[in-house]
Protein backbone atom coordinates (compact mmCIF):
# COMPACT_ATOMS: atom_id res chain seq x y z
CA UNK A 1 0.00 0.00 0.00
CA UNK A 2 1.08 3.59 -0.58
CA UNK A 3 1.76 5.88 2.36
CA UNK A 4 -1.22 8.15 1.59
CA UNK A 5 -3.72 5.31 1.62
CA UNK A 6 -6.15 4.73 4.44
CA UNK A 7 -7.51 1.70 6.19
CA UNK A 8 -10.84 1.43 7.93
CA UNK A 9 -11.36 0.33 11.50
CA UNK A 10 -14.74 -0.90 12.74
CA UNK A 11 -14.59 -0.12 16.42
CA UNK A 12 -16.89 -1.52 19.11
CA UNK A 13 -18.57 1.36 20.93
CA UNK A 14 -20.61 1.14 24.11
CA UNK A 15 -21.48 4.02 26.37
CA UNK A 16 -23.35 2.79 29.45
CA UNK A 17 -25.01 6.19 29.97
CA UNK A 18 -26.71 6.22 26.58
CA UNK A 19 -26.43 2.80 24.91
CA UNK A 20 -28.57 -0.26 25.61
CA UNK A 21 -26.49 -2.31 23.22
CA UNK A 22 -23.07 -1.88 21.68
CA UNK A 23 -22.68 -0.52 18.16
CA UNK A 24 -19.83 -0.40 15.66
CA UNK A 25 -18.36 2.85 14.41
CA UNK A 26 -16.18 2.96 11.30
CA UNK A 27 -13.17 5.25 11.12
CA UNK A 28 -10.76 5.87 8.27
CA UNK A 29 -7.17 6.13 9.47
CA UNK A 30 -3.94 6.71 7.52
CA UNK A 31 -2.12 3.53 6.64
CA UNK A 32 1.54 3.36 7.61
CA UNK A 33 3.70 0.26 7.21
CA UNK A 34 5.00 0.55 10.75
CA UNK A 35 1.67 1.32 12.43
CA UNK A 36 0.00 -1.14 14.74
CA UNK A 37 -3.69 -1.22 15.64
CA UNK A 38 -2.93 0.73 18.80
CA UNK A 39 -1.40 3.53 16.69
CA UNK A 40 -4.61 3.65 14.66
CA UNK A 41 -6.70 3.86 17.86
CA UNK A 42 -4.43 6.62 19.18
CA UNK A 43 -4.88 8.47 15.87
CA UNK A 44 -8.68 8.22 16.22
CA UNK A 45 -8.53 9.37 19.84
CA UNK A 46 -6.22 12.31 19.07
CA UNK A 47 -7.51 13.43 15.66
CA UNK A 48 -11.04 12.16 15.09
CA UNK A 49 -13.03 11.17 18.17
CA UNK A 50 -11.78 11.95 21.65
CA UNK A 51 -14.60 9.96 23.25
CA UNK A 52 -13.14 6.61 22.23
CA UNK A 53 -12.08 4.78 25.38
CA UNK A 54 -9.46 2.02 25.67
CA UNK A 55 -6.53 0.98 27.82
CA UNK A 56 -2.89 1.12 26.86
CA UNK A 57 0.42 1.94 28.43
CA UNK A 58 3.85 0.71 27.36
CA UNK A 59 3.34 0.17 23.61
CA UNK A 60 6.02 -2.52 23.68
CA UNK A 61 4.28 -5.77 24.64
CA UNK A 62 5.21 -5.67 28.30
CA UNK A 63 2.39 -4.04 30.29
CA UNK A 64 -0.36 -6.29 28.90
CA UNK A 65 -3.00 -3.57 29.03
CA UNK A 66 -3.83 -3.09 25.33
CA UNK A 67 -5.33 -6.53 24.71
CA UNK A 68 -8.37 -6.44 22.40
CA UNK A 69 -10.11 -8.61 19.86
CA UNK A 70 -8.71 -7.82 16.41
CA UNK A 71 -10.82 -9.41 13.70
CA UNK A 72 -12.14 -11.82 16.32
CA UNK A 73 -8.77 -12.91 17.67
CA UNK A 74 -7.34 -11.78 21.03
CA UNK A 75 -4.25 -9.64 20.35
CA UNK A 76 -2.02 -7.12 22.00
CA UNK A 77 -2.90 -4.17 19.79
CA UNK A 78 0.63 -2.81 20.20
CA UNK A 79 1.89 -5.89 18.37
CA UNK A 80 -0.84 -6.22 15.72
CA UNK A 81 0.47 -4.49 12.58
CA UNK A 82 -2.03 -2.91 10.22
CA UNK A 83 -0.15 -4.40 7.28
CA UNK A 84 -1.06 -7.90 8.53
CA UNK A 85 -4.71 -7.25 7.73
CA UNK A 86 -6.59 -6.62 4.54
CA UNK A 87 -9.91 -4.86 4.42
CA UNK A 88 -11.65 -3.34 7.43
CA UNK A 89 -10.18 -4.27 10.80
CA UNK A 90 -12.76 -4.95 13.47
CA UNK A 91 -11.61 -3.96 16.96
CA UNK A 92 -13.58 -5.15 19.99
CA UNK A 93 -13.00 -5.50 23.72
CA UNK A 94 -11.68 -8.85 24.96
CA UNK A 95 -14.47 -11.42 24.95
CA UNK A 96 -15.63 -13.31 28.06
CA UNK A 97 -15.38 -10.14 30.20
CA UNK A 98 -18.07 -7.53 30.93
CA UNK A 99 -17.61 -4.30 28.98
CA UNK A 100 -17.40 -1.12 31.02
CA UNK A 101 -17.12 1.31 28.10
CA UNK A 102 -16.06 1.00 24.46
CA UNK A 103 -12.95 -1.22 24.48
CA UNK A 104 -12.51 -1.27 28.25
CA UNK A 105 -13.34 -4.47 30.10
CA UNK A 106 -13.90 -5.20 33.76
CA UNK A 107 -11.24 -7.72 34.82
CA UNK A 108 -12.03 -7.82 38.55
CA UNK A 109 -12.78 -11.53 38.18
CA UNK A 110 -9.24 -12.23 36.95
CA UNK A 111 -7.69 -10.24 39.80
CA UNK A 112 -9.86 -12.13 42.28
CA UNK A 113 -8.68 -15.44 40.82
CA UNK A 114 -5.03 -14.42 40.99
CA UNK A 115 -5.56 -13.75 44.68
CA UNK A 116 -7.38 -17.06 45.13
CA UNK A 117 -4.49 -19.11 43.74
CA UNK A 118 -1.94 -17.10 45.76
CA UNK A 119 0.07 -16.16 42.70
CA UNK A 120 3.02 -14.90 44.66
CA UNK A 121 6.04 -16.34 46.42
CA UNK A 122 5.40 -17.92 49.80
CA UNK A 123 8.83 -19.10 50.99
CA UNK A 124 9.20 -22.54 52.53
CA UNK A 125 10.58 -20.83 55.61
CA UNK A 126 11.03 -17.17 56.42
CA UNK A 127 14.65 -16.30 56.91
CA UNK A 128 16.25 -13.19 58.36
CA UNK A 129 17.92 -10.89 55.85
CA UNK A 130 21.26 -11.66 57.45
CA UNK A 131 21.08 -15.18 55.98
CA UNK A 132 21.21 -13.73 52.48
CA UNK A 133 19.30 -14.53 49.29
CA UNK A 134 17.19 -17.58 48.53
CA UNK A 135 19.63 -19.12 46.08
CA UNK A 136 18.55 -21.08 43.03
CA UNK A 137 20.43 -23.04 40.36
CA UNK A 138 19.89 -22.41 36.62
CA UNK A 139 18.27 -25.86 36.38
CA UNK A 140 15.78 -24.95 39.11
CA UNK A 141 15.04 -21.66 37.33
CA UNK A 142 14.43 -23.49 34.06
CA UNK A 143 11.57 -25.45 35.65
CA UNK A 144 9.30 -22.40 35.91
CA UNK A 145 10.88 -19.61 33.86
CA UNK A 146 8.48 -20.00 30.94
CA UNK A 147 5.45 -19.42 33.19
CA UNK A 148 7.03 -16.35 34.79
CA UNK A 149 6.79 -14.60 31.41
CA UNK A 150 3.03 -14.04 31.89
CA UNK A 151 2.14 -10.34 31.65
CA UNK A 152 -1.49 -10.74 32.82
CA UNK A 153 -2.81 -9.50 29.49
CA UNK A 154 -5.83 -11.85 29.70
CA UNK A 155 -5.77 -12.78 26.02
CA UNK A 156 -5.91 -16.40 27.19
CA UNK A 157 -9.16 -15.76 29.04
CA UNK A 158 -10.67 -14.15 25.95
CA UNK A 159 -9.64 -17.17 23.86
CA UNK A 160 -10.80 -19.83 26.33
CA UNK A 161 -14.28 -21.19 25.53
CA UNK A 162 -14.34 -23.03 28.85
CA UNK A 163 -14.07 -19.71 30.71
CA UNK A 164 -16.68 -18.24 28.38
CA UNK A 165 -19.10 -21.05 29.17
CA UNK A 166 -18.20 -21.45 32.84
CA UNK A 167 -16.98 -18.18 34.39
CA UNK A 168 -16.22 -19.94 37.69
CA UNK A 169 -13.27 -21.65 35.98
CA UNK A 170 -10.01 -20.30 37.40
CA UNK A 171 -8.75 -19.87 33.86
CA UNK A 172 -5.45 -20.27 32.06
CA UNK A 173 -3.26 -17.45 33.41
CA UNK A 174 -4.19 -17.91 37.08
CA UNK A 175 -3.37 -21.62 36.90
CA UNK A 176 -0.17 -21.04 34.91
CA UNK A 177 0.96 -18.53 37.52
CA UNK A 178 0.06 -20.90 40.36
CA UNK A 179 2.15 -23.53 38.57
CA UNK A 180 4.95 -20.98 38.18
CA UNK A 181 5.20 -20.69 41.98
CA UNK A 182 4.53 -24.38 42.65
CA UNK A 183 7.55 -25.27 40.51
CA UNK A 184 9.78 -22.67 42.15
CA UNK A 185 12.29 -24.37 44.47
CA UNK A 186 12.08 -21.42 46.89
CA UNK A 187 8.30 -21.68 47.33
CA UNK A 188 6.53 -23.84 49.89
CA UNK A 189 2.81 -23.24 49.37
CA UNK A 190 1.93 -25.91 46.81
CA UNK A 191 -0.49 -27.65 49.19
CA UNK A 192 -2.21 -24.34 50.04
CA UNK A 193 -2.73 -23.61 46.34
CA UNK A 194 -3.85 -27.19 45.62
CA UNK A 195 -7.10 -26.59 47.52
CA UNK A 196 -8.30 -24.19 44.84
CA UNK A 197 -6.19 -25.27 41.85
CA UNK A 198 -7.32 -28.90 42.02
CA UNK A 199 -10.93 -28.08 42.86
CA UNK A 200 -13.75 -28.56 40.37
CA UNK A 201 -13.33 -24.91 39.32
CA UNK A 202 -9.62 -25.42 38.73
CA UNK A 203 -7.54 -27.67 36.51
CA UNK A 204 -10.23 -30.34 36.04
CA UNK A 205 -12.56 -27.87 34.38
CA UNK A 206 -10.05 -27.48 31.52
CA UNK A 207 -10.84 -29.63 28.49
CA UNK A 208 -7.50 -28.82 26.81
CA UNK A 209 -8.81 -26.73 23.96
CA UNK A 210 -5.37 -25.15 23.64
CA UNK A 211 -6.51 -21.73 22.44
CA UNK A 212 -4.90 -20.06 25.47
CA UNK A 213 -1.48 -21.26 24.34
CA UNK A 214 -2.11 -20.29 20.72
CA UNK A 215 -2.92 -16.67 21.53
CA UNK A 216 -0.37 -16.10 24.31
CA UNK A 217 1.94 -13.29 23.14
CA UNK A 218 4.66 -14.39 25.56
CA UNK A 219 4.63 -18.12 24.72
CA UNK A 220 3.78 -19.01 28.30
CA UNK A 221 1.84 -22.14 27.27
CA UNK A 222 -0.91 -22.02 29.91
CA UNK A 223 -2.50 -25.18 28.44
CA UNK A 224 0.73 -27.05 29.11
CA UNK A 225 0.88 -25.67 32.66
CA UNK A 226 -2.65 -26.91 33.34
CA UNK A 227 -1.94 -30.40 31.98
CA UNK A 228 1.26 -30.64 34.04
CA UNK A 229 -0.68 -29.54 37.11
CA UNK A 230 -3.17 -32.34 36.38
CA UNK A 231 -0.35 -34.90 36.23
CA UNK A 232 1.19 -33.70 39.51
CA UNK A 233 -2.22 -33.55 41.18
CA UNK A 234 -3.00 -37.10 40.07
CA UNK A 235 0.36 -38.34 41.34
CA UNK A 236 -0.27 -36.66 44.69
CA UNK A 237 -3.75 -38.18 44.93
CA UNK A 238 -2.49 -41.70 44.25
CA UNK A 239 0.41 -41.30 46.67
CA UNK A 240 -1.98 -40.09 49.36
CA UNK A 241 -4.38 -42.95 48.56
CA UNK A 242 -1.78 -45.72 48.50
CA UNK A 243 0.43 -44.36 51.26
CA UNK A 244 -1.78 -42.29 53.57
CA UNK A 245 0.96 -42.35 56.18
CA UNK A 246 3.52 -40.95 53.76
CA UNK A 247 4.39 -37.46 52.71
CA UNK A 248 3.01 -36.00 49.48
CA UNK A 249 5.44 -35.66 46.60
CA UNK A 250 6.93 -32.19 46.26
Amino acid at each position, binding site marked *: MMANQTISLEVFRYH*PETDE*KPRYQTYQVPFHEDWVVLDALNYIKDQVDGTLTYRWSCRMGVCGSCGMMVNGDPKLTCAAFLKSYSGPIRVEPLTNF*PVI*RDLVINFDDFLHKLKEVKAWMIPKEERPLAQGEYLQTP*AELAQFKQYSMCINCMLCYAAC*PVYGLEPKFLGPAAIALAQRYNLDSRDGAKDERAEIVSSSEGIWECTFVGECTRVCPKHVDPA*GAIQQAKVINTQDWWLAFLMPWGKKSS
Partner: protein
Amino acid sequence: MTTKEYHRPMPALWWLHNSQLILFMIRELTSVFVAGYAVFLIVLISKVNDDRAFKETLHCPTALVFQIIALPFVLFHSVTWFNLTPKAIVLFRGEERVNPLMIAGGHYVLWVLVSGLILLVAV
Protein backbone atom coordinates in the same frame (compact mmCIF):
# COMPACT_ATOMS: atom_id res chain seq x y z
CA MET B 1 -19.59 4.05 41.60
CA THR B 2 -21.60 1.44 39.75
CA THR B 3 -21.83 1.37 35.99
CA LYS B 4 -24.08 -0.57 33.66
CA GLU B 5 -21.77 -3.14 32.17
CA TYR B 6 -22.50 -4.93 28.93
CA HIS B 7 -22.25 -8.74 29.03
CA ARG B 8 -21.75 -10.28 25.64
CA PRO B 9 -23.43 -13.65 25.20
CA MET B 10 -21.34 -16.67 24.19
CA PRO B 11 -22.33 -17.62 20.60
CA ALA B 12 -23.97 -21.05 20.40
CA LEU B 13 -21.65 -21.97 17.53
CA TRP B 14 -18.47 -20.65 19.20
CA TRP B 15 -16.61 -23.76 18.05
CA LEU B 16 -16.96 -22.70 14.41
CA HIS B 17 -14.87 -19.60 15.11
CA ASN B 18 -11.61 -21.11 13.84
CA SER B 19 -10.16 -24.38 12.54
CA GLN B 20 -8.43 -25.18 15.85
CA LEU B 21 -11.74 -25.08 17.70
CA ILE B 22 -13.36 -27.28 15.06
CA LEU B 23 -10.53 -29.82 15.43
CA PHE B 24 -10.99 -29.67 19.20
CA MET B 25 -14.68 -30.47 18.85
CA ILE B 26 -13.94 -33.34 16.48
CA ARG B 27 -11.42 -34.68 19.02
CA GLU B 28 -14.08 -34.44 21.74
CA LEU B 29 -16.67 -36.20 19.56
CA THR B 30 -14.28 -39.05 18.79
CA SER B 31 -14.47 -39.93 22.49
CA VAL B 32 -17.86 -41.48 21.72
CA PHE B 33 -16.16 -43.98 19.38
CA VAL B 34 -13.42 -44.66 21.94
CA ALA B 35 -16.16 -45.44 24.47
CA GLY B 36 -17.85 -47.64 21.84
CA TYR B 37 -14.61 -49.54 21.32
CA ALA B 38 -14.27 -49.98 25.09
CA VAL B 39 -17.78 -51.49 25.29
CA PHE B 40 -16.99 -53.72 22.28
CA LEU B 41 -13.81 -54.88 24.02
CA ILE B 42 -15.71 -55.69 27.22
CA VAL B 43 -18.19 -57.76 25.19
CA LEU B 44 -15.32 -59.61 23.53
CA ILE B 45 -13.60 -60.26 26.87
CA SER B 46 -16.85 -61.70 28.23
CA LYS B 47 -16.70 -64.30 25.42
CA VAL B 48 -13.00 -65.04 25.56
CA ASN B 49 -13.56 -68.56 26.94
CA ASP B 50 -15.95 -69.46 24.12
CA ASP B 51 -13.96 -69.46 20.90
CA ARG B 52 -16.99 -69.76 18.59
CA ALA B 53 -18.98 -67.00 20.30
CA PHE B 54 -15.87 -64.80 20.34
CA LYS B 55 -15.39 -65.14 16.57
CA GLU B 56 -19.10 -64.67 15.86
CA THR B 57 -19.12 -61.44 17.86
CA LEU B 58 -15.99 -60.23 16.13
CA HIS B 59 -17.21 -61.05 12.62
CA CYS B 60 -20.90 -60.19 12.83
CA PRO B 61 -21.96 -57.49 10.31
CA THR B 62 -22.86 -54.96 13.04
CA ALA B 63 -19.43 -55.30 14.63
CA LEU B 64 -17.69 -55.00 11.25
CA VAL B 65 -19.64 -51.87 10.29
CA PHE B 66 -18.95 -50.38 13.72
CA GLN B 67 -15.23 -51.06 13.43
CA ILE B 68 -15.00 -49.61 9.91
CA ILE B 69 -16.71 -46.41 11.07
CA ALA B 70 -15.03 -46.16 14.46
CA LEU B 71 -11.44 -46.95 13.46
CA PRO B 72 -10.61 -43.63 11.73
CA PHE B 73 -12.16 -41.66 14.58
CA VAL B 74 -10.26 -43.65 17.19
CA LEU B 75 -7.03 -43.23 15.23
CA PHE B 76 -7.66 -39.47 15.05
CA HIS B 77 -8.32 -39.44 18.79
CA SER B 78 -5.12 -41.38 19.53
CA VAL B 79 -2.91 -39.33 17.22
CA THR B 80 -4.16 -35.97 18.50
CA TRP B 81 -3.68 -37.02 22.12
CA PHE B 82 -0.23 -38.50 21.45
CA ASN B 83 0.76 -35.22 19.81
CA LEU B 84 -0.38 -33.39 22.94
CA THR B 85 1.59 -35.55 25.40
CA PRO B 86 4.62 -33.19 25.46
CA LYS B 87 2.32 -30.57 26.98
CA ALA B 88 1.65 -32.76 30.00
CA ILE B 89 5.04 -34.45 30.27
CA VAL B 90 7.84 -31.94 30.55
CA LEU B 91 11.26 -33.38 31.27
CA PHE B 92 14.51 -31.53 31.82
CA ARG B 93 18.06 -32.62 31.27
CA GLY B 94 19.76 -30.10 33.52
CA GLU B 95 18.69 -26.69 32.23
CA GLU B 96 17.60 -28.05 28.84
CA ARG B 97 14.08 -29.22 28.20
CA VAL B 98 13.89 -32.62 26.53
CA ASN B 99 12.73 -32.19 22.93
CA PRO B 100 8.89 -32.51 22.83
CA LEU B 101 9.25 -34.68 19.72
CA MET B 102 11.05 -37.26 21.86
CA ILE B 103 8.08 -37.42 24.26
CA ALA B 104 5.46 -37.75 21.51
CA GLY B 105 7.73 -40.09 19.52
CA GLY B 106 8.17 -42.32 22.57
CA HIS B 107 4.43 -42.77 22.77
CA TYR B 108 4.23 -43.77 19.10
CA VAL B 109 7.05 -46.27 19.56
CA LEU B 110 5.29 -47.72 22.61
CA TRP B 111 2.03 -47.88 20.63
CA VAL B 112 3.68 -49.84 17.82
CA LEU B 113 5.42 -52.19 20.27
CA VAL B 114 2.25 -52.93 22.27
CA SER B 115 0.20 -53.41 19.08
CA GLY B 116 2.88 -55.76 17.70
CA LEU B 117 2.93 -57.73 20.93
CA ILE B 118 -0.85 -58.11 20.94
CA LEU B 119 -0.82 -59.23 17.30
CA LEU B 120 1.94 -61.71 18.11
CA VAL B 121 -0.08 -63.19 20.97
CA ALA B 122 -3.31 -63.22 18.90
CA VAL B 123 -1.73 -64.91 15.90
